């Protein structure tokens, strides 16, 4: 369970490695919000190495989405495998987020 970040001008890319759950969602939130405070506007979270996400992890994404929009930015999610898509569909979060296939798919028009 770790997060790898890359920053390129106002683009922040976070690669999630392992689960995003109640035990580490605060870390992800803090990390992203710090970058947003320092000017990141386009935030891309890449789950291609991600494990499962629990309700707290989903809640962290909802909360980040709101905060980033409030700052005039945008959050995109990429690389969700079939398990994670199931989770977004069950919770209807696929109506709140646009889910991109790969990281480069997410960068088109970002």
């Amino acid at each position, binding site marked *: 369970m770790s997060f790898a970040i890359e920053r390129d001008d106002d683009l922040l890319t976070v690669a999630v490695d392992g*689960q995003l*759950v*109640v*035990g580490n969602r605060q870390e992800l939130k803090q990390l992203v919000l710090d970058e947003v405070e320092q000017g990141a506007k386009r935030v891309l979270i890449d789950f291609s190495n991600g494990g499962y996400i*629990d*309700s707290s992890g*989903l*809640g962290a994404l909802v909360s980040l989405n709101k905060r980033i929009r409030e700052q005039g930015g945008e959050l995109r999610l990429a690389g969700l495998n079939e398990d994670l898509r199931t989770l977004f569909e*069950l*919770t209807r979060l696929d109506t709140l987020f646009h889910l991109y296939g790969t990281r480069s798919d997410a960068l088109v028009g970002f």
Partner: protein
Amino acid sequence: MRSLVSDPGGGSLAPCGEWTIASDIGEIDRVVLAVTTLCEAAGFPPKVCRLNVPVALTEAIANAIERGNGGDAARSVHVSARIDDAGLCVEVTDEGTGFDIHSARALSEADGWVEREDGRGVFLMYALMDSVESSCNAGHTIRLVLRRS
């Protein structure tokens, strides 16, 4: 390692495990991993081992810690898991007074649920498991301990 024994009592033994943890979010993962590994060893489908079991169990333990025990580290959470021919049965016990699980499940029917940060845990347990039951405990337990030496 588990020992391999046959059941002389007529079918009640099964792969199982029990864990008592402090109300500390950092304790969740090892229990979830242990239960998931039991399920893998028992031949549950990969998706169930990757998604249904770990997510539902994480929700149940997180709620037990944060809601049931109010995050009080002095209170503990007990998890017992058991797999038999019918399937997996996991029980998560906290020291709280319980709650109305049907209202908690119905949070998903309220306006604005999708935009909320919280309120998805119980919903997900129902979505990912075949059955979810909440009960308040009563009764008396006698515990016998015999040391090996």
